[in-house]
């Protein structure tokens, strides 16, 4: 079982690394969207600092949302998803492998580039480290919950808008606590509560989302 997880994870990573330009797209999108806000609203540092947590978090959310497509789309189109479902390994494990690969390829780069954006938005240093922690805990949930949505819409023609419609409401708790943690940290207050909440949601998503995703994949495949 572990072996299956490991192999599928490596396969997805390898496939993605062969398509490097695609890999960078969500990341560029993330930076681009954040850049739009100082241009659209105001470049004064105080105002930027006030809106930075929300802006960075919303942009991260959208970047993950746009990249969710790659989770199952290709495998669905070329039929390897069906083969995966036929394999004797529990589908949950395989889903978990694919989601892990997705997070390593999109979530983790977002976390790594986030300090730069904190700099752009003149966040204080303490808040930048909290931004990293909150993204580190929050982005895996985005991938996990997103997987449910993609597996439901992967067979729908032009399912992109539909996917955002069904997934964004489910992302709201993560957004609230992620952005709030950074906001509170930039005021110099303790953020343990927010980070613990994010961790709890991560544990919940980690245990339930792969189950829901595998049910959803079977529903999609039965068509």
């Amino acid at each position, binding site marked *: 079982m572990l072996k299956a997880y490991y192999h599928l994870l490596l396969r997805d990573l390898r496939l993605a690394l062969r398509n490097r330009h695609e890999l960078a797209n969500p990341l560029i999108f993330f930076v681009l969207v954040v850049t739009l806000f100082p241009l659209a609203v105001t470049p004064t540092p105080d105002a930027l600092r006030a809106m930075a947590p929300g802006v960075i978090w919303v942009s991260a959310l959208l970047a993950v949302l746009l990249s969710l497509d790659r989770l199952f789309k290709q495998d669905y189109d070329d039929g390897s998803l069906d083969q995966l479902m036929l394999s004797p390994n529990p589908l949950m494990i395989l889903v978990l492998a694919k989601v892990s690969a997705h997070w390593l390829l999109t979530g983790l780069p977002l976390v790594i580039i986030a300090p730069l954006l904190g700099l752009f938005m003149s966040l204080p240093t303490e808040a930048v480290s909290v931004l990293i922690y909150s993204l580190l805990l929050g982005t895996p949930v985005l991938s996990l919950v997103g997987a449910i949505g993609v597996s439901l819409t992967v067979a729908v023609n032009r399912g992109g808008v*539909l996917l955002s*419609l*069904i997934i964004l409401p489910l992302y*709201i708790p993560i957004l609230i606590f992620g952005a709030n943690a950074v906001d509170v940290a930039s005021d110099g207050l303790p953020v343990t509560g927010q980070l613990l909440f994010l961790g709890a949601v991560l544990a919940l998503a980690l245990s339930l989302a792969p189950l829901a995703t595998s*049910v959803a994949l079977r529903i999609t495949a039965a068509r």
Partner: protein
Amino acid sequence: MIKAIWNWIQRFSSPKYFYSMSAPLVTWFSIAALLTGLYGLYLGLFVAPTDYQQGESYRIIFIHVPAAWMSLFIYMVMAISSGIGIIWQIRLADMVAAASAPIGASFTFLALVTGALWGKPMWGAYWVWDARLTSELILLFLYFGYMALQSAIEDQRSADKASGLLAIVGVVNIPIIHYSVEWWNTLHQGATVAKFDKPSMHIDMLIPLLLMAVAFKLFYAAVVLVRTRNEALYRDRNRRWVRELIERL
């Protein structure tokens, strides 16, 4: 014993049987909803005492609060019947879920609109980002997502199952959303909204409120039956029992 129950469920849940059995129920539920609703409105609008803080405008709660209760209740009905549809493959349950969604969305919308109308004289603004308003709005989005997914998938059975799964995922999320929004509001800015300490409700106000809640439930029962009957006719339009019905017309 279990087998007998199962057979009974199978028989009762066949769309044909349901269609023939549900016709009188629609009438009874409609009449009951109308009577309790009219009596509840009479008590609420004419008999219940005027509130000493809010004056007459509090009377909108007799619509607003039951509508808000219904918005959650119908989502639960949707999720539970979707679960029944997915687990036991009972088509009728899927139909009930699909038929409920627009009704639930309407009640959610009604709760939001009446809340806004009440908010203007009380809070001075149609919309404030109060925790309850926000989670009600998110609930509306959840309904929209369900309906969008339902209509996007052509194959009826997988549309039912896919949107049903979404409803179940939504139910797991509703408490998380609710509490995070609540904490967000208290964490974020404290009480922007001047919430007066509510005195425990006077019995003359409570009775019409509960009557209206019952009336809304009965109304929902009637409407969901009508919609499910339509759904059954439409989905089984190529089956023999529907054809026979049409020929008899």
